[in-house]
């Protein structure tokens, strides 16, 4: 891991620092300059509130999927969303980087989601910039049918980074970050589709962290993996929490218990309980929560 250190130091390029250093969070660059975004994840100190959801109502067409959600997600912590199927946990997750925009007929009817105090549903918010800061890993691993190398560099190339040396460095750093480097370092040019399921998922994580987001959303990242691969991914999450704020949706309560710091329990679109993981699993305040975590329903 020592080799990675200087690279990490290098990655924040000066461009973003120049444009926004020392200014208020609302300072706006007037022209779109393709640039590697600021490594915002390193900005907020651990434990500070990063994402602030308040009074959120969310609709699919006419049916309400989320009811008055209030939630504060702390920086550099792992937050787990648990709850039975269809309880709205994935929906809330997808709200955080506005992936729901892609689905027809969805809308936020009330409430706000603020990241660093910026309401991400304001009309002047650039969704693309938001998604660069809030990365996502999906339930089903979805590596692109390109080489491993290209998978990792995809996000950076989009931002106009073409410096081969830098890209190489990022690839190594990300793969190491995703604990995949040793397994694939000899075949970076082979297709990402040739990896095993667990490797693919870790490749997706590597791809996500390559663009240095601040928050990583994980939508049941282990549901399609076998226990060994799951264990590796969980291990990875533990490592990543030092650098990123992680929000993870899971069906697996043990998983939530194992790797999260705080846990939110949802039921029928409502946030039932939100507390430190230890409390949720050992001393839930709510009867429904207790019933769920002790396996009596869901």
């Amino acid at each position: 891991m020592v080799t990675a250190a200087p690279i990490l130091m290098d990655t924040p390029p000066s461009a973003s620092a120049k444009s926004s250093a020392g200014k208020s969070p609302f300072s706006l660059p007037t022209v779109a300059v393709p640039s590697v975004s600021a490594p915002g994840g390193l900005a907020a100190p651990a434990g500070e509130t990063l994402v602030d959801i308040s009074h959120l109502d969310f609709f699919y067409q006419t049916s309400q999927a989320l009811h008055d959600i209030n939630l504060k997600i702390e920086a550099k912590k792992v937050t787990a969303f648990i709850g039975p199927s269809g309880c709205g946990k994935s929906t809330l997750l997808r709200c955080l980087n506005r992936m729901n925009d892609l689905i027809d007929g969805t809308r936020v009817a009330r409430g706000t989601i603020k990241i660093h105090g910026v309401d991400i549903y304001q009309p002047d918010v650039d969704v693309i910039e938001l998604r660069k800061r809030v990365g996502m890993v999906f339930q089903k691993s979805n590596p692109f049918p390109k080489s491993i190398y290209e998978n990792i560099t995809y996000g950076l190339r989009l931002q106009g980074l073409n410096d081969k040396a830098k890209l190489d460095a990022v690839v190594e750093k990300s793969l190491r970050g995703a604990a995949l480097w040793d397994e694939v370092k000899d075949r970076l040019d082979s297709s990402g589709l040739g990896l095993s399921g667990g490797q693919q998922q870790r490749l997706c994580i590597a791809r996500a962290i390559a663009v240095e987001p601040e928050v990583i959303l994980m939508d049941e990242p282990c549901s399609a993996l076998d226990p060994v691969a799951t264990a590796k991914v969980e291990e990875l999450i533990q490592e990543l929490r030092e650098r990123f704020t992680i929000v993870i949706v899971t069906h697996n309560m043990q998983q939530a218990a194992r790797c999260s710091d705080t846990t939110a329990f949802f039921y029928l679109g409502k946030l039932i309980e939100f507390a430190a993981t230890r409390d949720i699993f050992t001393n839930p305040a709510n009867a429904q929560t207790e019933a769920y975590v002790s396996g009596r329903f869901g």
Partner: protein
Amino acid sequence: MSEPNSTAAPAAFAIQKRRLRLLGLTLDDTIKAFFGGNAVVAIVVLTLITIFLLREGLGFFAQNSQSLRVYRQAGLEYVDFIRAEVDDHTALTRYLSDLRLRQLTDLTEVKKLSLEDANAALTKFDEFADKFSGTVDPLRSMLSDLTEQATAIKTKFIVTGDKKEERRQLLAEGKTAEAAAVQIEETDFAAELKPLVATLPAFKEGNREFGRALLATLDGAPVMPAPELAARMEKLKQLTRDYVAGLPAVEHALETWDYARPIPAWKAVSSFVFGRQWLTASFWQDWYGVIPLFIGSLMVSIVALVLAVPLGVGAAIYINQIASLREQRIIKPCIEFISAIPSVVLGFFGIAVLGQALRALSQVSWLSWMPGFPYSERLNILTAGCLLALIAVPTIFTLAEDALNNVPRAFKEASFALGASRLQTIVKIIVPASLSGIISAVLLGLGRVVGETMVVLLCAGNRIAIPDFTAGLSVVTQPVHTMTGIIAQEMGEVVRGSIHYRALFVVGLVLFALSLLINYVAQGIVRKYRISIG
């Protein structure tokens, strides 16, 4: 991997980056609008087709109305009453000449007379026939005179129109002096028609005389040797009597005829839609009636579908339900391959091979029981229909197979579980369940066949006439012309802007509307079918 990054400045969370805007659109919006614009092309093309067909075609109705008006005002209509009467007589004469031919055959083949002797034996018949056909001669000469008069009036009118056009063109070119020099003489139809109408008493007189003479000739009809021929002679006599009885009606029509009666506006449309004649470049009167072409298209399509539906659907059922996997793998692409044969190649095949082969087949003696066999027109409805069937089969096959494929497996399994055989399952469960899909497949096949041009142009025989339906089923061995064929054939030869040119565009409009209709019905059936299954 814990690397405290204290050196980095506390970065701003700047997600409100402003992107380059052009006319208030971001790059992404512009791209989206560009793609959207391409999607609109489909609508635009459909609209443009409608607009341009209408633009070129609509003028037809005004021109047709004008043409019909001249037809009446110049007295052509009047003369045509008499012409119809004479033509009917000609038909009788032709019946008589047919009778002579039959008798001649009878004499030479049954009675084994030599040709000279046979002709000699027919002297009496010929005298009768001469007399019979001669009765109409006075009438015919009168008709000929009237024809000339009417044509003269029409020509005069047209010349006036031409002169006006000439003046207009000259004025447009700025040649005012020359334009003024063009002399225009307006046609006074009432005055021009006077001598024409004045012949009415003479005609009545001649007409009665003609009727009497015709009836009188019947008494001199020769006795026919064979009972079958005698029956025909009797029929001729009866037909003649009926004909003579109908003569006063013609006189009445002539009496009540009025050149000034206006032509209603709908006539311009109805004479196209219901017109039974497509007659162009005529010295007398042009008729643009779509019926013969429509019937031609229809007949060819019917024959094609009658052949293609059993084959296409049968093949679909075979491939989908009965055939082994290997057969499926080989046959399916092969049938799809047939649809890749360009229609012009099929048309050529029809001219070069199939027309000949079918005719030869029709002349095989043990097939003579088939309707219309033997026949002599190489290119006819049947030839074109067979080839169109080959075009329609792949379409019907592919779509019908899809429909069969969409039947849920559970239906089939349930049927088998109840002890039904494969045939029973196919007939009672699978085909009914996919019936609407099959019907829409057939309809789309029909659309393909109706719109097909090259095969019918090359192989349908191109005779512009309503086929003779009294011939029964053998009507399929007659040549026809079709809507698509006429456009392809005549478009290259007509002068732009002429009524004939516009008429072709109206035929195109009819085809266009027809294809939309077929599509609409087929889609409707498909929609209904989706609901019933899902």
